[in-house]
């Protein structure tokens, strides 16, 4: 667990350092996946399916807020539908307009969920997004999750009814509109999963907010279980065919994702939980305090206490005899320093010697000059200089 927490700390550090670039990369990848998914499923207009167009749109979306990715994705869908049928285009445009007017206009920050939901359906893990959104966000995320489900089933319906519309000759716009609206908006499967998403988000959010131990884990497991149970019961009641095996795998993946999110966003130690009770003038307080778990990534620092460049390197061959000599010298010097009285005496003696030496030196200088002067005067008196000449 410590290793995971340390990794979390490192990831947080990296994200804090490069968040600007990481966010842009995620946005770009999300846009590429979204546009690729749309082109792959309903790529009826060949000009728009060109990879250069996909990449260009993705680059544009990278530098704009996420809501623009949603708007461009909607525009791309409308472009493909336009090449298919004008009647279908009207119905699709009306559905997207409704989504924008009643929700996305008011909460553009949650638009990312609308994008992620169809991608999750394609990856056969639709339970992941409502559970993750309820764990990280709030109960409001039920709306974008439901809208994402509607968007996915709309694209799915366009794909299904494309063949029928292409083969029909002389199709009227009004009949196209009526038939497509009926097929897409009265889909039992779509409404079933809209309800399942809403129930799942509200339940997971409700449990996650409870003051119980391991609330996040409990909420994740209950959410995944509820997703399967409600969809199965609903499928049986409404006579909708659901592949339970794939849905079960999706639920397992959503549990794993929920646990990972718990480690990342809500890491607490329930074993050190404290229950406090106190009061003021108006209330009694029953407080449950759960400590957070945080392991900061250890930084390896090499601190050199005694750095001497002239000292032997690690790769140097050590001469044992020389070492012994050095240690002996060291010991001797230590012994000399060890006896303080002796040391004082020695120091006193040394200072006396120095004084004597200076005295001697000064006296010898004096005597020398006197001697010189004397010899010169003697020489003069005895006429020695003249004799030499």
């Amino acid at each position, binding site marked *: 667990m410590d290793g995971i927490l340390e990794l979390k700390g490192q990831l947080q550090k990296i994200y804090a350092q490069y968040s600007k670039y990481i966010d842009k990369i995620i946005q770009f990848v999300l846009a590429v996946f979204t546009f690729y998914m749309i082109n792959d499923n309903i790529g009826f207009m060949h000009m728009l399916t060109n990879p250069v167009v996909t990449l260009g749109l993705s680059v544009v979306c990278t530098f704009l807020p996420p809501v623009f990715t949603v708007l461009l994705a909607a525009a791309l869908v409308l472009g493909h539908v336009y090449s298919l049928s004008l009647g279908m285009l009207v*119905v699709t445009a*009306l559905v997207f307009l409704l989504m924008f007017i*009643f929700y996305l*206009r*008011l909460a553009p920050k949650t638009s990312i969920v609308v994008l992620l939901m169809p991608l999750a359906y394609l990856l056969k893990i639709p339970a992941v997004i409502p559970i993750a959104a309820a764990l990280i966000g709030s109960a409001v995320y039920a709306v974008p999750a439901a809208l994402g489900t509607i968007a996915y089933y709309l694209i799915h319906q366009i794909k299904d009814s494309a063949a029928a519309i292409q083969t029909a000759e002389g199709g009227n716009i009004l009949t196209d509109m009526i038939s497509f*609206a*009926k097929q897409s*908006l009265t889909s039992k499967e779509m409404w079933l999963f809209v309800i399942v998403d809403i129930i799942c988000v509200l339940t997971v959010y409700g449990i996650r907010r409870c003051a119980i131990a391991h609330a996040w884990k409990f909420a994740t497991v209950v959410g995944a279980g509820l997703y399967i149970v409600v969809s199965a019961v609903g499928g049986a009641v409404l006579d909708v065919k659901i592949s339970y095996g794939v849905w079960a795998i999706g639920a397992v993946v959503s549990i794993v994702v929920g646990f990972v999110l718990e480690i990342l966003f809500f890491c607490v130690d329930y074993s050190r939980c404290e229950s406090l009770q106190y009061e003021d003038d108006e209330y009694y307080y029953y407080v449950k305090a759960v400590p957070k778990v945080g392991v900061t990534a250890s930084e390896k620092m090499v601190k050199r206490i005694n750095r001497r460049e002239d000292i032997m390197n690690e790769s140097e061959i050590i001469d044992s005899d020389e070492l012994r000599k050095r240690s002996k010298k060291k010991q001797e010097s230590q012994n000399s320093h060890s006896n303080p009285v002796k040391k004082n005496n020695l120091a006193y003696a040394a200072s006396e010697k120095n004084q004597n030496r200076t005295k001697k030196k000064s006296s010898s200088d004096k005597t020398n000059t006197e001697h010189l002067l004397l010899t010169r005067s003697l020489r003069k008196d005895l006429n020695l200089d003249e004799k030499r000449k």
Partner: protein
Amino acid sequence: MIDEKKVKLMTRMASYENNEGREDLKISAYYRKDYASIHMVYTIIWVTIGYGCLMLLIGFCLFDKLMESSSMSTVMTLGIGVVVGYFVVVIAYSVATHTVYSKKHQIARMRVKKYNHDLTRLLKIYEKEKR
């Protein structure tokens, strides 16, 4: 000499100006009532368009049934239902919009007040430096 206090203050202010400050300063140019009312008007327009779209889609889905039962009483009942539904949706959205935008204005004003406080502190520091 670099004044640490001044640098901290200026960094905080610059960060605010570049992020939330842009919108907050625009919002705080309005009174709270005016700001909420303007958005309520926008919402009513948008909801009217949206409600029209919704009715159109429902109309497409129930086209056959509507054609079958084209008696006067049914049309009247449907018409009243549509109008009542419209008013219910408009009122609900207007109330929600008023609440949301009033709170938004309140929060923005608080942040702008804090920003103004920082600004006066910075001015005082400059005045001290001049002396």
